[in-house]
């Protein structure tokens, strides 16, 4: 069946944007920003169409494209999305689109900035749409380099220098991806005998079914992948790049990193781990569950001790990753549905948080909680954005975070009652640090030094309105998110239940 190559178009849209931007004169500041915005608007529109047109009753991979590329190695330009990747693709677009508008006030070398921002987005899109491990890795690495440059050039420093933070993030992620690469090569070599080797994810998933991958191999390969994806997801103890990195990065990059790129880790664990190496996952799941509990509580407590807004949200996002991990580790339909939905919800929520922090920093020139206070007097809109993000973060029903967390808990509680019990106690501590932050930043007496600060307006409002709307819409109608996810997870888990588990 020949059809419109939708995913390629989505992938190419920002690349075209980059090409157009690169021939623009660097003085055309407004035009540059408009081009970036239009590019992302088109990509977002296309993705929304893809999401809308995705056939839930059919489930599975759709919009598939397959063009052989390096046939000797079994590499193909193979794209496709299913209910696992589609929400994350949508997330990328929503956050990417907002990130462009959040960066509207950047006037230093704006051309280079937006080129790299789009490059980062291309990297994220590529990882979610590729159905070939080789392509996946290519795009995965693509995200790391622009991050480094953007942090060093456009970043800001508080606790540590931005160079240090950028270096730390890059080393962590590159080291992680080196392990991952080793894992992928080991998988590639072992999955099929010479001559039949392939990087195709669908084909590799068959290797386990055919019995080509012994449990021994799966356990080792998945361990290597876990080191890589675990670092990306900031799994304890590989998290320490995250708070410093987010703090030093410019707002748009923090949004994309915490919102989207982190989820590549979780996505990888499911797409490559669960689908291709189920026995390896099963072996490591109990350990991941323990790490997940540590993630939740450790990061929540450390967040309590933070004074810098970006650090609070940085640790908070590490804490939330624990819920995704425990959902993954529980290995049943409900918990995995919840974990994926949580990736989406957390992505939107943390992007909104970072956007709001960016605005506050722009206007007040500080991110230190003790220096802030009473901002709701001068900036009611920003306060609303903060409240929405904060309430979603502590899992308030009616916002996107609730049903993902709830389903995760339902699924995980069956398998790990004690761990889940401990992890759920995190909702209390989350409430403590989130509410304390909201109270100290937004409420309290009016402070005169902020009277000159104007509330969010114009381009600054885009991220607030867009992400806020998504939080509410997906909160009241969770089925539009979790229904799509379930359409793919259910058959996959049914196959695995029959075989591996």
């Amino acid at each position, binding site marked *: 069946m020949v059809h419109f190559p939708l995913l390629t178009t989505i992938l190419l849209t920002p690349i075209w944007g980059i090409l157009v931007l690169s021939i623009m004169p660097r003085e055309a500041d407004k035009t540059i920003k408009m081009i970036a915005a239009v590019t992302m608007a088109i990509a977002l529109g296309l993705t929304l169409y893809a999401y809308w047109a995705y056939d839930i009753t059919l489930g599975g991979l759709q919009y598939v494209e397959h063009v052989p590329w390096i046939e000797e190695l079994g590499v193909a330009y193979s794209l496709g999305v299913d209910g696992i990747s589609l929400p994350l693709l949508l997330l990328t677009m929503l956050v990417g689109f907002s990130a462009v508008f959040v960066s509207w006030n950047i006037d230093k070398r704006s051309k280079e900035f937006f080129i790299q921002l789009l490059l980062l987005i291309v990297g994220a899109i590529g990882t979610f749409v590729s159905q070939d491990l080789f392509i996946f890795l290519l795009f995965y690495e693509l995200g790391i380099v622009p991050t480094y440059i953007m942090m060093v050039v456009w970043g800001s420093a508080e606790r540590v220098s931005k160079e240090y933070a950028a270096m730390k993030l890059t080393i962590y992620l590159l080291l992680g991806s080196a392990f991952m690469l080793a894992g992928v090569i080991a998988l590639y070599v072992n999955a099929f005998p010479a001559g039949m080797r392939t990087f195709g994810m669908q084909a590799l998933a068959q290797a386990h079914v055919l019995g080509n991958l012994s449990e021994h191999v799966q356990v080792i390969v998945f361990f290597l992948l876990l080191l890589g994806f675990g670092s990306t997801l900031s799994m304890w*103890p590989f998290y320490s790049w995250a708070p410093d990195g987010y703090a030093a990065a410019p707002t748009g990059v923090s949004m994309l990193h915490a919102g989207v790129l982190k989820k590549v880790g979780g996505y990888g664990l499911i797409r490559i781990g669960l689908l291709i190496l189920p026995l390896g996952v099963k072996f490591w799941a109990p350990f991941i569950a323990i790490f997940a509990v540590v993630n939740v509580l*450790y990061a929540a407590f450390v967040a309590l*001790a933070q004074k810098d807004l970006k650090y609070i949200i940085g640790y908070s996002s590490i804490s939330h990753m624990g819920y995704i991990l425990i959902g993954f580790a529980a290995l049943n339909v409900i918990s995995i549905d919840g974990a994926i939905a949580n990736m989406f919800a957390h992505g939107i929520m943390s992007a909104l948080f970072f956007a709001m922090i960016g605005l506050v920093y722009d206007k007040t020139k500080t991110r230190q909680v003790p220096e802030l206070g009473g901002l709701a007097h001068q900036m009611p809109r920003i306060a609303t954005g903060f409240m929405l993000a904060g309430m979603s973060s502590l899992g308030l029903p*009616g916002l996107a975070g609730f049903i993902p967390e709830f*389903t995760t808990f339902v699924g995980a509680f069956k398998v790990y009652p004690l761990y889940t019990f401990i992890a759920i106690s995190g909702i209390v501590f989350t409430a403590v640090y989130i*509410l304390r932050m909201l109270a100290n930043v937004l409420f*309290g*007496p009016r402070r005169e030094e902020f009277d000159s600060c104007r509330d969010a307006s114009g381009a600054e409002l885009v991220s607030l309105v867009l992400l806020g709307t998504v939080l509410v819409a997906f909160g009241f109608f969770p*089925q539009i998110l979790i229904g799509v996810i*379930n359409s793919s997870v259910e058959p996959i888990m049914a196959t695995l239940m029959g075989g591996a588990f």
Partner: protein
Amino acid sequence: MFNQYALHHAWLIPLLPAFAFIFVGFFLRRLPAVAGFVSICMSLLSFILSLGVGYGVIARQITVDNPLVQKIPWVSIAGFQADMGVYVDPISAMMLVVVSLVALLVQIYSLGYMRGDNGFGRFFAYLSLFAASMLGLVIAVNFVQLFVFWELVGLCSYLLIGFYFNKVSAREAAKKAFITTRIGDFGLLIGILFLQILFGTLDFQQLAATVPTYVMQHGTALLTIVALLIFLGPIGKSGQFPLHVWLPDAMEGPTPVSALIHAATMVVAGVYLVARAFFLFSVLPDAMAVIAWIGAFTACFAASIAFTQRDIKRILAYSTISQLGYMMLALGVGSVTASMFHLMTHAFFKALMFLAAGAVLHALPEKNDIFTMGGLRHKMPVTFAAMTIGVLAISGIPPFAGFFSKDEILLAVAQVSTPLYTIAVVTSFMTAFYMARLLIVVFCGEEKPENQPHEAPLSMRIPLIVLGVLAVIGGYIPYANNFGDWVRFGAAVHEGIDFSVAATSTVIAILAMCLAWFIYGNGMVRSDKISRRFRIFYKVSFHKYYIDELYLWFNHTFVDGFGKLLYWLELHFVEAILIKVAASLPVKLGNVVRKSQNGNLQRYGLVMFGAMILVVVWLVLLNPLFNGVAGGAY
């Protein structure tokens, strides 16, 4: 038929205030008059529909055993299904009427009370959101829906306690309320998860059908734990000991909010939850005993604090906690009827008292200590009458509303346990005493010259009058019309008035009020002398048993302390050792490698030659693939 329409469109009841929230919150915030009008219209429609539902329940003979349930799927994935819907039975119908009525009256009252406030529109938006959430909670068909709206009413409570967000005290009180109830919700959530795992459903009807079978097969041990976990939610929400600490602080909110949320409706959500899930609790005697004892203890404990408080709203807040304890006690001894009856009458008379207190605070701005008031009866006759009715009702003086419901509770308790009955009677003595104290100190005696009180405006008087009437007749009329036949669990119990119980409680209440008169009215007994003689008791009661201080200390020392400790460890160990060591390793390795790169071409050549030999040897000897090729060549 209107009631037919109302029954089948009951989902509109929460939806109408929700629309009001959207309109007012997003578009009409800057137009106070329109905002108030829209909110009140929606509440009025919602109330009329609720009345229709109430009539419909009676006309269509809908009882607790055959509720009218409509639902649509909300979340449905493999192995987990949650619906949203409408559960109409006499209990929820009664709640719908009470909640929508009080919400309507409080909104009318707020027209006057909040007049001229900068946040007028915001206030009405929040009130509408609250009404929507509370009504959604009442009609919940399963635990998920209940939990969703349970949290949303918590959010509204948070927003409204912190309504005057420029005040640090309000901000802190809001935070405290949220976090304290969160602790309870943690238990509730775990309990709900347990139910989902054990029964595979969270639907009330399905659970009610399967719980008895489960108990027969597996006993009550695990289910008792589950029930107590669920009960943690009501402990938090309904201000039961030991999670009661947030409710007195919640008085930082505007007074209409205290009347609506922290007296009449939201705080009874916990009681309602237990009643709704009574199919679970009623089969677990141990859980029931815990509920009864926590209720009784809370009732008595809160009353003993209310004794010495001086802030008018805080006295009322402690009395709310105490009355909620009564309702829990009634549930614990197995009488849903008594509990729900008291819930209803309490909603009327407590809202009445709060609104009357609001009128006092409106007349005397910046004052809240009752001993700075006094003699207000002359200038504020309507408010005085309202407060008097409220006090008589809560003290259980016939024929006011509280008498009938309290009597129902006392009777139910007396049949089950003498110790609990004793506690309940002692509490009712204390209640009458501190309530009479409030009334006498605020309204009787000499008027203070520095005060310039004035009667409340009309918009505030109307709700006072309506609620005043309800606080008078709200007990007898339901009682005479077989309230217990409708609102019940299991078989209807007809107890009628037990004259020994009724007489005891009435006499005790009157005695307590007389005592209060002797102390605060004509000064026969000096209150400062008493407080000096019983100094320790006075101090402990006045400082609320130092529980707030204890919690604060715990939070600062352990929770914050642990966070700081972990962060310190992270900075000084993880960061310093792990990362510095890891980072210095490549540098050292680099130094080693660098020595070999000294520009000596001969050595480079040697290394290259050696490497080539190694590669050839490896290819020939070790690689099986190459072996084959080599073999063919030979």
